[in-house]
């Protein structure tokens, strides 16, 4: 029995693989995709989402454009050095036969949640601007969400954009702060686990010689691996966003602890840091399920296996 799912995303290489994993998984029923500015500008992330869904024969899934800039800050800059100028690492996807939905991202999320028979899981793979807007604009609708599974932040492995901040939270800390305190159950899939959920080029062998989807995925992985080699010297690429989707498919793939999480918005050096109260020092109520360990092998098999199956189904 598949669970209704919404994905808020800024495709983005690891976002693309995560969307492929979601479409490939019978456990999830993808009801809508909302785009947000982050890895690259909104017009790119929206276009990439449309083309990705077209590649996966899912032009039925509505795609609505959300916020291009953070809730408040105007000094956040995209991560084009990681994802390429238009976000797909230079991989050219065929244009989609349709444009974005007329509704705003918040409106699409509201309609999907209100019309769904059972609670929807919202998977957030980019900055949390749209999710914060949903919580603010339609609190009663947001309260109906089953859970928000977000990729962002870190408890002990603190940051990748700055020493203490992970990109998605750093890009819009005010929105993230609102989401963690929003009252909706949150699973935080942060760097503590995504840095272990890695794949090497060899892991992707099952896709080599595959169809159009496999070719696109391998193209993205080559660009991502090359960048990763440049500044970290190894070819084990962390699959940030697809781990968040995997955690929605099989929650037991990560081990979580219920902890209190604040987001630093004022610190000159620590803006965007997820302050996870591991030692329960702050006395604040613990509300967030923070992922601290991951079954890396299980995740790898799930990701590559499901993508290979989907590629076979989609054919040339």
């Amino acid at each position, binding site marked *: 029995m598949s669970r209704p799912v919404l994905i808020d995303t800024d495709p983005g290489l690891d976002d693309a693989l995560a969307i492929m994993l979601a479409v490939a998984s019978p456990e999830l029923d993808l009801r809508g995709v909302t785009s947000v500015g982050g890895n690259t500008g909104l017009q790119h992330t929206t276009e990439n989402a449309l083309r990705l869904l077209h590649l996966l024969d899912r032009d039925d899934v509505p795609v609505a454009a959300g*916020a291009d800039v953070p809730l408040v800050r*105007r000094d956040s800059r995209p991560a084009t050095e990681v994802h390429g100028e238009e976000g797909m690492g230079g991989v050219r996807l065929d244009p989609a036969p349709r444009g974005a939905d007329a509704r705003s991202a918040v409106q699409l999320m509201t309609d999907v949640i209100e019309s769904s028979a059972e609670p929807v899981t919202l998977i957030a793979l980019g900055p949390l601007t749209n999710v914060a807007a949903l919580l*603010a604009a339609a609190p009663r609708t947001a309260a109906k969400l089953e859970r928000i599974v977000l990729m962002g932040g870190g408890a002990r492995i603190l940051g990748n954009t700055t020493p203490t901040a992970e990109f998605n939270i750093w890009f819009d800390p*005010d929105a993230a702060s609102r989401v963690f305190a929003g009252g909706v159950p949150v699973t935080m899939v942060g760097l503590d686990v995504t840095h272990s959920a890695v794949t090497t080029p060899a892991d992707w062998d099952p896709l080599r010689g595959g169809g159009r989807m496999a070719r696109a995925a391998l193209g993205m992985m080559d660009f991502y691996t090359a960048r990763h080699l440049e500044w970290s010297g190894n070819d084990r690429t962390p699959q940030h966003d697809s781990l968040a989707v995997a955690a929605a498919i099989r929650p037991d793939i990560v081990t979580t602890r219920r902890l209190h999480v604040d987001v630093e918005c004022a610190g000159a050096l620590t803006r965007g840091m997820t302050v996870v109260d591991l030692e329960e020092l702050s006395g604040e109520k613990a509300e967030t399920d923070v992922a601290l360990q991951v079954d890396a092998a299980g995740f790898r098999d799930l990701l590559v296996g499901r993508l290979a199956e989907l590629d076979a189904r989609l054919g040339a």
Partner: protein
Amino acid sequence: MSTELVFDCDTGIDDTMAIVYGAGNGAEYVACTVTHGNVPVHVGTRNTLTVLDRLGLTDVPVHQGAARPMAQPLMTAEFVHGQDGLGDAGVPASSREPAGTLAAAEIVRLARSRPGELTLVAVGPLTNLGLALLLEPELPRLVKNVVVMGGAVGVPGNASETGEANIWHDPEAAQLVLDAPWDLLLVGLEITMQTQLPPEALKRIENSTDPRAQFMWPVMQHYLDVYERSLGVRTCVLHDPLAMALALEPDLATYRLVRAAVELRGERSRGQVVADLRGYEPVPEDPREPGVVRIVDTLDTAAFHERFLSALGA
């Protein structure tokens, strides 16, 4: 000459005065949207319906909006407006139902339906306007202009040493509103604190037989008590009515353009409108430039008072 406007309010006592002022001075209420602020949003919604119906404006739709600020817990001001938000004067509540509960989406819908025609008048925390901007980034192009009662430039605040209540109660939303590329008039304490009603004006309201004055007089008493404590003289300051007045008749005042931003991260100064009055930089020309606001330079206070009294039939 009537002005089509959407009135975003948190109906307490001076919001009520502003609705009455508008009704008597050519305001055409396309809709009223309500936000948290003086009172919780459901109380504000009930009061807005009550005041509109009391003025016979039973066809004006009222949409309930944000129940709390974007990034901080809810705080209300019943100590100024009474527990019921109408001075605890026992005003019978209207039974009319609000037209909806997604005020921000309604503002966007109305603006899209009559691009460039609507004036937004906001006299409470700016959460609804901030959310509307999030829902529709093109909103600034779709409205004529925006008049906000908020801020304190070059004068002390009221909610804090430097913060005026409407901005202080949702600094993040205020920053979004200030940054948006629209023509924004910020009617702050630097001018509203000079609109205190003289005793003879109060006398005229008390003695008037007009139903509007007779409705307003008992509701105002709580407000007059508050100002008697804080200003030492029994009067009331017409914050929200001045915003309504300048939306309807801009010529009542002269203006100046300044660059302004909201302090979000100050330990003591969060919620302060930081305007550049130094005069070192060249004066901004375009009111629609992001971060540029219009503030009041001089006001014809006597004319404003007369229009206020005439709207009450006093």
